[in-house]
């Protein structure tokens, strides 16, 4: 298989994927089978937290694909992530059925609260899991395709494109805050009960979601590895380094950019869809420009243009965030801010850049 051949040359990727496979097996076992008194027991909280990190890892790969390999600094990937999350959230809301506070079999609680009589048209179909999953892929994909088609065709590049993507997610943030939009306003969607008939409160469902996240991350990693090592990937790198020359050779730069951007948005949407049932809430804050730019810093810390670096960066930064927001709530933004400055000034290639430098000097 061609992917295996690529993987053999990607030492970091081998290590990352092996570790991923290991925890995919061990963590659910330690959670479900090892008794709670044992030292090896992994609590459900920890497992859910790890599952959340894995979703972030997938999101980081999506950002890295466009930033590291294509040279597009997207400050709006949070929008795709959140849209995927909302699609999943809508399915979970429909699953609540008449168990909501108001007991309305059709309308989610917040619509009853707003005195709505009918389900808005865009909520139809989300009672089916397959439809929701289709939307998880289609909605972010379509948005990215439309936005990209406009942006790349008229050759908006560099900083302009970054600001446009930021404006995109900002506009969506404002829109989703509105109650009239029909997505729960600033409270978002929450109070989920079950997924595919399994209660979200049980450890087994959590373990299943964890495994699904790990598999999605593995799939995302391998597909991105395949793309970046293929001829398409070589072209991406060429576009990143010298866009005009690629165009002069005769390639349709905008089409390549559009495909990669859309694929990346779909990955982000999937990450969002897996994130929501584990966290139990989706609200407009996921659209905030800060959330999107945080994703960029994961990739920057880990090292751009290395897929395993992006995953490592996401895990590292988010672990630090979880730790600091509890230990020293005030310090987190200082730390995040300093991370931005220090990484861009001193570590332009991230942590993995350090490792590779050592390798090269050896």
């Amino acid at each position, binding site marked *: 298989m061609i992917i295996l051949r690529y993987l053999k040359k990607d030492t970091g990727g081998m290590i990352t994927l092996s570790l991923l496979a290991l925890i995919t097996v061990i963590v659910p076992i330690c959670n479900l089978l090892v008794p709670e008194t044992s030292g090896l027991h992994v609590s459900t909280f920890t497992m859910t937290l790890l599952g959340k990190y894995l979703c972030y890892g997938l999101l980081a790969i999506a950002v890295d694909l466009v930033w590291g390999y294509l040279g597009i600094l997207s400050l709006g990937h949070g929008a795709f992530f959140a849209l995927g999350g909302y699609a999943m959230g809508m399915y979970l809301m429909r699953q609540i059925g008449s168990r909501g506070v108001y007991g309305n079999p059709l309308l989610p609680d917040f619509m009853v609260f707003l005195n709505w009589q009918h389900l808005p048209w865009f909520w139809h179909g989300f009672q089916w899991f397959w439809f929701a999953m289709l939307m998880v892929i289609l909605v972010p994909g379509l948005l990215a395709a439309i936005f990209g088609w406009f942006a790349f065709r008229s050759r*908006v590049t560099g*900083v302009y494109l*970054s600001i446009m993507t930021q*404006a995109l997610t*900002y506009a969506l943030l*404002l*829109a989703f805050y509105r109650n009239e939009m029909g997505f729960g306003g600033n409270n978002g969607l929450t109070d989920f009960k079950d997924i595919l008939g399994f209660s979200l409160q049980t450890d087994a469902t959590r373990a299943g979601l964890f495994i699904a996240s790990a598999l999605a991350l593995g799939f995302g990693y391998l597909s991105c590895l395949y793309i970046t090592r293929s001829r398409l990937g070589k072209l991406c790198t060429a576009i990143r380094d010298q866009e005009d020359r690629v165009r002069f050779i005769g390639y349709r730069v905008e089409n390549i950019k559009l495909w990669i951007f859309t694929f990346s948005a779909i990955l982000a949407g999937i990450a969002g869809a897996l994130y929501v049932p584990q966290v139990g809430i989706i609200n407009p804050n996921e659209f905030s*420009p800060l959330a999107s730019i945080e994703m960029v810093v994961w990739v920057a810390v880990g090292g751009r243009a290395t897929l395993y670096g992006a995953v490592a960066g996401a895990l590292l930064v988010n672990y630090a965030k979880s730790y600091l927001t509890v230990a020293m709530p005030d310090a987190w933004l200082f730390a995040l801010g300093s991370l*931005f*400055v220090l990484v861009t000034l001193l570590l332009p290639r991230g942590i993995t850049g350090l490792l590779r430098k050592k390798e090269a000097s050896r």
Partner: protein
Amino acid sequence: MILLSSRWRSCLLCFLTIMSLVSFGVAPCPASEDTTLFEQGAHQLVHGNFRQKEAAIAKINATNDPRAEKLLRALLGGKLYRVKKDNNLVYITKKGSRVSITDVLSGKELGTVKKRTLKKITINNKLRSKLREELALLALRSPDPDKRLAAVNKLMSSLSPESAKILEKLITTETNSKVRQGLLTARAIANLRDTDDAKRLQALTELQGNLNPAVKNELTRLLGEEKNKDVRQKAEAVLSSIESKIAFYGLVEKIFFGLSLGSVLVLAAIGLAITFGVIGVINMAHGELIMLGAYTTYVIQQLMPNSIGLALLLAIPAAFVISGLAGILIERTVIRFLYGRPLETLLATFGISLILQQSVRTIFSPLNRSVATPAWMSGSLQLNPVLSLTINRLTILVFALLVFAGLYMLLKKSSLGLQVRAVAQNRSMARAMGIRAAKVDALTFGLGSGIAGIAGVALSQLTNVGPNLGQSYIIDSFMVVVFGGVGNLWGTLVGGLTLGVANKFLEPWTGAVLAKILILVFIILFIQKRPQGLFPQKGRAGAAS
């Protein structure tokens, strides 16, 4: 308690009234005669039937006695009683089960009594409306022109053809032009209710183009019941001219609000236009430099709580210096290492913005602080009955234009400006000519940051000052710069004002949030068509993109 005999009492009252009139320097009217008239009226109120009461009210009002207003108000409010025993007029105020009474004529407190020893002075509906009218007329004679104006406006809704004569008299003596205008309008409205066609036509001519809301109501009423064809036609013409005038001023007001919003955008964006446009640096911490300026205003106001206006004026240079120094610090320690790598600059400055935000949150608390507005900036400028401009917005609009003009002159006329433009157009050539490009970069960045600080001073007058102040403006500012064309101050001015006005025009039929979203979408589409903005610029920034 000493009860003076009534003769003694009236003597004392006369004396007191004369004394008070003399001491206020207004003693042209025969005070004693007024006083006796007033007392006669009061007497009639106690003993008369409803018709006599009506006459009494008119009599009381005809006196210029200072006690008249209180008496009439009490009568209207049902607070006027007579003591059953001696038929003295008293005001009552409730105190538990008993009431405390005050003598009307002397103003003396007579202690508390049981309520059943008193009898209310009753009035009927006719008297009630008469009283209201009389009270309005009373206020029309007040020495304070503002009170007179308010009285005229109040009177507009309850005019009768008979009022025209009284108004006529008042018009001849009125000196204040605003009040006079109001009286003329009131007279015309009163005449509109006259049965004489000629008078109504005459009144309509007088009301041509009058924007007082009462006029519009009156004309609508008139059209509903008018029989005479000429009057009808004329009234229709006058009404439509008034309505189109109101629509016009509504438009003017909307444009003003738009320009006001636009001026805020221009202030926020113009510093960015310099750093982004002239030296090609994306400064995501620009919003936080605005915030620093706003906090500087807050701190200076805290230091001098007694002179808010002076503190605000002092805050302008102080904010410029503080934000400017912060900008130079950022440039020297971070940005200078990242020239030529715009995406990295963007990330690093974003990090700085987070640090600045959190520092402010740690130092000043995450809560919003409010900055006081000095007296000369509050209130509004009433241009006519349907158009008023708030003074603080007007000031900020003018201020934004001044800042723009100052900055424009600085860039066009000073030697620093020349150097800045030279470096922007061709860095290596400028260096070859002996310009120290690094120094110019730092100064330009400091200048842009300082302007951000000044913007913060202005913003502190419009919104609360909080750690998130900058964040909410940064994307809008970028939109303005990108829309107007990078590296072009005129573009920023036109772009900012245009976006502000467009926003305010969209708002009524989409709502504020949706208007903002539509503007963002519009700019996204606009950039597709014209990536260089409204006014493209050639130079380093222009060539790079």
